[in-house]
């Protein structure tokens, strides 16, 4: 059954048919509810009916569930890969288990290609998966570059591999694509304050993630403007990849103030936090994601990120406000809890 579902999802990834999304999503939901005891309990708690008729009614687990439980829709013994979240919030790390990475790999590659992102001369501001075996981002980079070591610009010790970078930047004959976390880009600019980092004509920068745990914050506009000046690329040629360890697929947007869009095997809803129902158009809410490639865990995840659905079918990502909680006297307890960690 699982193998057949995996085949169905793989087929959908390579030949998406809008009309088949819902039936596939519901089939995966039924499978996960049956095979994943943690998810089954959650559905029972929410009094989810045995049969539901829309992907929009599939219960989404909160992102933090991946920290609190093992979310597996297959047996423990079949586990071959484990990705982990960074754990920078001090509450431990989230885990995403896989019995096979076939779907994950397909989702990464098909998603990248769907948005016509260049794969030639892809330089990764990240560690090779051998050095970061639990990082889904490193694995993603590996998949996109056939795990070639010379494409990874962060050394084993976490610092920049200067020789590698210098060599890539000096070759100005062909455009390149620089892909890394926003923090890695920021570090790059800081490590080489005086060095010319200008990329060859037609190059693209793709940043992802935030600054969690770094103690640094910079707005998207300021980051893109800095990158544009130092890398010599237009802000429209800077992309954001919005993904997370808990998912298998990614959303993408380019430039500043533009929508994130999904590949055909993903959907999203913006949830009104007051009512826990879908927000009316144009309203800010929590982002709830359906990812068909998440066959091995749960396909619906409620994030802690704020977003606004856009008329173009995408969403404007607002992220989360780190200062919103705790407030007032709950800060006393929060500070105590943090110091105890």
């Amino acid at each position, binding site marked *: 059954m699982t193998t057949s579902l995996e085949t169905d999802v793989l087929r959908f990834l390579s030949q998406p048919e809008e009309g088949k999304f819902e039936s596939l999503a519901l089939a995966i939901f039924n499978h996960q509810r049956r095979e994943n005891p943690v998810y089954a309990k959650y559905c029972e708690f929410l009094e989810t009916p045995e049969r539901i008729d829309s992907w929009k009614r599939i219960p989404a687990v909160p992102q933090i569930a991946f920290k609190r439980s093992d979310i597996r829709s297959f047996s423990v013994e079949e586990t071959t890969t484990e990705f982990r979240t960074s754990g920078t919030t001090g509450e431990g790390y989230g885990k995403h288990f896989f019995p096979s990475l076939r779907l994950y790999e397909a989702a990464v590659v098909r998603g990248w290609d769907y948005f016509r992102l260049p794969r030639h001369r892809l330089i990764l501001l990240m560690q090779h998966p051998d050095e970061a075996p639990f990082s889904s981002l490193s694995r993603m980079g590996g998949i996109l570059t056939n795990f070639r070591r010379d494409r990874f610009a962060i050394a084993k010790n976490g610092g920049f591999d200067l020789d590698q970078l210098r060599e890539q930047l000096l070759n100005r004959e062909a455009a390149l694509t620089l892909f890394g976390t926003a923090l890695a880009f920021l570090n790059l600019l800081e490590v080489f304050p005086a060095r010319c980092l200008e990329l060859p004509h037609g190059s693209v920068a793709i940043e992802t993630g935030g600054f969690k745990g770094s103690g640094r914050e910079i707005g998207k506009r300021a980051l893109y403007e800095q990158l544009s000046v130092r890398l010599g690329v237009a802000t429209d040629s800077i992309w954001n990849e919005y993904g997370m360890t808990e998912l298998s697929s990614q959303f993408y947007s380019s430039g500043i103030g533009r929508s994130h869009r999904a590949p055909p095997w993903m959907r999203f809803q913006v949830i009104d936090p*007051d009512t826990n129902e879908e927000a009316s158009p144009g309203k800010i809410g*929590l982002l709830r994601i359906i990812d068909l490639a998440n066959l091995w865990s749960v396909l619906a995840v409620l994030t802690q990120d704020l977003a606004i659905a856009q008329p173009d079918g995408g969403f404007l990502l607002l992220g989360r406000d780190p200062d919103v909680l705790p407030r*007032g006297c709950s800060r006393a307890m929060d500070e105590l809890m943090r110091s105890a960690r």
Partner: protein
Amino acid sequence: MKLDDRIAAVVSAAAGFSWLGDLTAENIARWIELELGQYLSDPRLQTYGSQHCLTFPLSPILHIVSGNTPHAALQSLIRGVIVGATNWMKLPQEGLPEVDTFVRALPKEIRPELAGDLHQCWMEEAEAIVVFGSDETIQEFSRWARPTQRFLAHGHKISLGLIWSRCDPHIAEGIARDVFPFDQLGCLSPQFFFVAGDSAEFASQLSKCMEKQRLNLVAPVRDRGLAAALRAFREEWKFRAATEPGVFLWDSLANLDWVVIHDPNPGLVTNPLHGTIFIKAMPSDPELALSPIRRLISTIGLSPVNLESVSLAIRSGAQRTCQIGQMQNPPLTWHHDGWPALGSFVRYVDVEGL
């Protein structure tokens, strides 16, 4: 302005704020008498042991207040006005409309000056500085204060309840009265309740009364980011309730008005407040369980109130104990954070050999 006139002005201005307590001229006079004897009302030298004494208000007093509740800000201001000080108040960025209203109702000659931005000269000229806020806020202002200035810090505090009773409508109503005012953001707002006996049953019974209790109050205005954080927190606990033994959750339908969470683990957890009620199993040694927050505890609400429960609360670090349902209503004469409320705002002059 004379003391009696100041008292009358405070009583009149406070008339619209029932949550400030029973602010009558008689009660204020009794409060002054209790804390300062004749010092405020009689300007002559008073006998004090073998010497004589006079008091003078510390003046001006700079009040730097936080935005969680208007309660603490107004209490501080009222104390300053009563002792006869000139009062300046630095308001939080988002303002405090209740303070504006109160101040406008005072006569001009004792009307405090309010500002959203701190005037540097206030910091330099104030004789006393009162700061409400987080540790960082207090540290920041304490760096600027001079040794000759009296610096009074009211940091964030934690309040809680200890309950050995069953949950009946009376207790549920009391818990609602303690939790819901100021959207649970005050230092007197309980963050959790330790309940002896069947704590899960207590939580279940409490949840049945919450909808009715919430209806009695004006729904708080919350911005979208805050609502989202509260929703995310609530969904996390729903997941925990579904998957962890002994965790139960009941919440208001289609809104974020209230949530009751039963957590069998007596360990301390962060509460996002805003109508979040944690019912936790009473630990075998509550004093030990509360020891990490001992220095942060403000009020412990009790049910029942008896010598044993009061003694346990005091040993655990309470600055104040009271009946469940009265946590938000300290008497006029209470010692906020353990200090004399009026006495902290005056200085004594000792006269010997007369």
